[in-house]
């Protein structure tokens, strides 16, 4: 690794550093129950009678052992994935295992509760396996290339997350119990789960040892390996399969524990554990210590004061995301980046006549969305004189369309600026950062009004963007690093929202309705303001269009032509932050529109910056209007919020595209 920031501290030192406070915490926790030797002896007494001993035997010890086992298992899975994908930022949660397991459990709770009696473990494993299968399928054409897999995993995660959200919106009360599990609670009440997990962990370790030699070869590059006759696909499949099975069984027992699988191997690597053997030996140890320490601290701090349970998994994500952000500039990204898709997709030159149908399509969809709807007696067309109905729909339409425009323009600017076809406000986590700020605003401000929240959201977006730039500056804003910073911020957002959701408070449904991005609350003045902002921001972006034509060619060329590159980048990025924040307030953090619209526009032949911006803006508006309208009609009188509907539509399309990437 390029940075030696931890090289003064060998892996053993780090483990000792974490182990000592853990020992102290464990010792003092046990001391409450009496003599330490005596409490250790309870482990050997299978049927204790005193209540104190019972608690130790059935709750405290299994929880402690489970934390150690799960931490170790996740770290092993992390080492395997990082080795196989040659990507230091691959981890058990990135491939979609957890979100697949989550969705499968939710669906079976609602549709076939009988299945749950057979075994949650199997449902979770099947769901996680299917999700990973999907991730593999999407990246199969590229020979399971590392970055493509991570990207596919990210999209699968977002997509399955959106589906789970739809279920959660309509069945919050009955799915609440699943949220406790999925947020990663380590509470135990017996040795069953430990008994189930340790043989699997042992098996995984042994298999990893057996695969050591071929796995080490994976450090070579693809061409070299092929010439050595290594069956790349199958080796990757075996390594990943092992990691996924291990993750699956851990997730099915204790839910999603974020970041241990990512952090442990990377810390070991930074501390000088460079060979695979070293990492395979030290990482599980460190993972076990990390999780057990977090859990012990949480029990010590949270136990007595909170009426609700704070799941350890959510806390590890909360602590892990900053760690990941810190790691990003220190890591070396190998493996191929997603190719710029320009030649592949066969983009054609713009023929303005050929795209003249776009405004017409937009206009007719606006008419349909304003006039067609469902009511008590089913479908009907509104009479244009029924103003209150039309006014309501117009507000929502304007809000949706302007958010679509702003996301699309932001996405276009980001994609051109970073010369990275995968950049978008959602993927880079700018929306997530803005959403975290707004959630905090809702909970911490005494009387949050919309303008206040808009301000807080913009601040959040600016801070996130600043953070992203600061972190990736040293790598010249390399696409891979930017993407992964986005993953970290996304995980932070998930942790914040899952801690809020776990409480099961009936009010959380309203927070959910907001997070998922509904145009419900759009008022006439808000709709007008947003439209004005969208127009203004698009015009501004268009003013900068010649920068956007030249900047993708690289900073050097731009400088040579006489552009103040720093100024250009900074002003464009500020514009992006403001637009993303305003749009996020309406459609929530996950909509895919900022990714999708610029892509579609390029496919239709809008290649020059000005055309690209305008085409993307039109398409963004169109997609958002369609998503908003469909979301209100599909489950009438229930409503799928526009942001979620958009991510379902956009995500499906994006997965299709990714397959051809």
């Amino acid at each position: 690794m390029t940075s030696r920031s931890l090289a003064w501290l060998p892996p053993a030192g780090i483990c000792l550093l974490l182990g000592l406070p853990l020992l102290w915490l464990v010792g003092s926790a046990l001391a409450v129950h009496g003599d330490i030797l005596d409490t250790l002896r309870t482990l050997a007494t299978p049927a204790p009678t005193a209540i104190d001993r019972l608690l130790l035997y059935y709750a405290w010890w299994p929880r402690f052992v489970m934390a150690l086992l799960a931490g170790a298992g996740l770290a092993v899975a992390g080492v395997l994935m990082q080795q196989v994908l040659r990507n230091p930022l691959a981890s058990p949660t990135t491939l979609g295992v957890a979100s697949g397991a989550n969705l499968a459990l939710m669906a079976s709770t609602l549709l076939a509760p009988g299945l749950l009696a057979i075994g949650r473990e199997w449902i979770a494993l099947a769901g996680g396996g299917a999700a990973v299968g999907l991730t593999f399928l999407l990246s199969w054409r590229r020979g399971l290339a590392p970055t493509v897999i991570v990207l596919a995993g990210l999209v699968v995660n977002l997509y399955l997350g959106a589906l789970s959200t739809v279920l959660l919106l309509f069945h919050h009360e009955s799915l609440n119990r699943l949220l406790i599990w999925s947020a990663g609670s380590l509470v135990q009440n017996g040795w069953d789960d430990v008994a189930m997990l340790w043989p699997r962990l042992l098996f995984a370790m042994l298999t990893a040892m057996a695969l050591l030699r071929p796995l080490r070869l994976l450090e070579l590059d693809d061409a070299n390996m092929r010439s050595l006759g290594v069956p790349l696909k199958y080796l990757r499949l075996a390594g990943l399969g092992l990691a996924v099975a291990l993750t699956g069984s851990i997730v099915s027992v204790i839910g999603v524990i974020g970041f241990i699988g990512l952090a442990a191997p990377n810390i070991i690597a930074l501390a000088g554990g460079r060979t695979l053997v070293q990492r395979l030996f030290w990482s599980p140890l460190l993972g076990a210590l990390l999780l057990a320490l977090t859990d012990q601290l949480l029990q010590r701090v949270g136990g007595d004061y909170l009426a609700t349970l704070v799941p350890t998994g959510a806390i590890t994500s909360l602590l892990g995301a900053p760690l990941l952000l810190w790691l990003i500039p220190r890591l070396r990204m190998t493996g191929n980046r997603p190719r710029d898709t320009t030649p592949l997709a066969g983009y054609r030159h713009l023929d303005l006549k050929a795209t003249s149908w776009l405004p017409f399509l937009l206009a007719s969809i606006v008419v349909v969305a304003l006039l067609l709807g469902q009511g008590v007696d089913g479908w009907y067309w509104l009479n244009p004189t029924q103003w209150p109905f039309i006014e309501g729909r117009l507000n929502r339409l304007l809000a949706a369309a302007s958010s679509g425009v702003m996301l699309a323009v932001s996405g276009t600017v980001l994609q051109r600026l970073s010369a990275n076809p995968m950049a978008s406000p959602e993927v880079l986590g700018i929306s997530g950062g803005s959403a975290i700020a707004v959630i905090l605003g809702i909970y911490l401000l005494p009387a949050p009004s919309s303008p206040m929240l808009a301000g807080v959201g913009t601040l959040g977006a600016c801070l996130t963007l600043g953070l992203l730039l600061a972190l990736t500056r040293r790598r010249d804003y390399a696409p891979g690093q930017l993407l992964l910073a986005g993953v970290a911020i996304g995980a932070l957002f998930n942790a914040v929202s899952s801690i809020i959701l776990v409480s099961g408070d009936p009010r959380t449904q309203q927070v959910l309705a907001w997070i998922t991005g509904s145009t419900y609350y759009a008022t006439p003045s808000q709709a007008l303001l947003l439209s004005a902002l969208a127009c203004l921001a698009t015009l501004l972006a268009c003013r900068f269009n010649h920068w956007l034509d030249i900047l993708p060619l690289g900073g050097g060329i731009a400088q040579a032509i006489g552009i103040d590159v720093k100024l250009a980048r900074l002003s464009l990025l500020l514009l992006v932050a403001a637009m993303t924040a305003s749009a996020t307030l309406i459609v929530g953090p996950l909509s895919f529109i900022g990714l999708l619209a610029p892509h579609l526009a390029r496919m239709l032949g809008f290649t020059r910056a000005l055309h690209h911006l305008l085409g993307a803006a039109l398409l963004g508006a169109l997609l958002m209007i369609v998503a908003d309208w469909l979301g209100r009609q599909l489950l009438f009188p229930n409503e799928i919020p526009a942001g979620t509907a958009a991510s379902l539509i956009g995500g499906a399309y994006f997965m299709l595209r990714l397959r051809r990437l």
Partner: protein
Amino acid sequence: MTIRPAVSQRLLIHLLAGLLLMTMVMIAPPPARASQAHPIVALDQAIAETLLELGIAPVMISQRDYFDFWTDDAYDASQLIEVGQPLPNIELLRQVSPRQILLAPWQAAVASQLDAVAPIEIVDDYPYSSEGDIWIHLLAFTRQLGQQVGRPQAAAHLIQQTETHLDALRNKAMDEDMPLLIVQLMDQRHVRVFGGHSLPQGVLQRLGLHNAWHGATNQWGYALVGIDSLFDIEARLVVIRDPFPIGIEQSLAQNGLWRHLPSVKRGDVITLTHAFWFAGGLPSARRFADALVEALDDD
């Protein structure tokens, strides 16, 4: 290149023709639903079930299936209209033109969107937004609702009826002197336990029974805890009826900690056979009292 404009023109013509066709097929007279009685909208379950007991129908609620479960199917389908989740469908409301919309304080955020549809009132005496004796709050809540819908007498009657009913139950439950621990099983490892400012707490008080949970609780009067937190409490377990998760009893039966809970060891766990909404009004309180006393009587 020469073909493309033709294609797009054709596309456009098809689109327009399709639109026209759709218009012709689907055109229907604008909605008019003046014939039916104008309902009252109640998005909160405590408000909705109390309204129904005050003799108001139809009531518009957000979700039928959960309402039916938590009210133990006490109300007729004709008394209820669904208005949509997660937020009430405004167009549907406009068509039905309700005469009044009642909101709990925690739902006040939707008020700005709904006030164009019908007059909105927020029930400030909401039992789960204030500290203090829950039973007194439940009564105040019922009275205020009665005022707000113009049926103060029906409210007084409901209060009197419920209190007499609970007094009668109190005599039946007198010989139970063991404190009770009211729990809702969330999964094999976690329960919600009701205490402090919860509806079960209020009912236990009225019945002269003791609640064993004295730990911290949230605004709705429950705490989400691991099963291990119930251990050092000497009490009899009361398990609330719940639609999910099926199969939890079996897995609990094999489960070390659960089997060793004092109440489970003694074999005196009570499982309620009727449902009630934990954040409900007097009707839920009554159903909980009935279910509890019935179960206590059975042993």
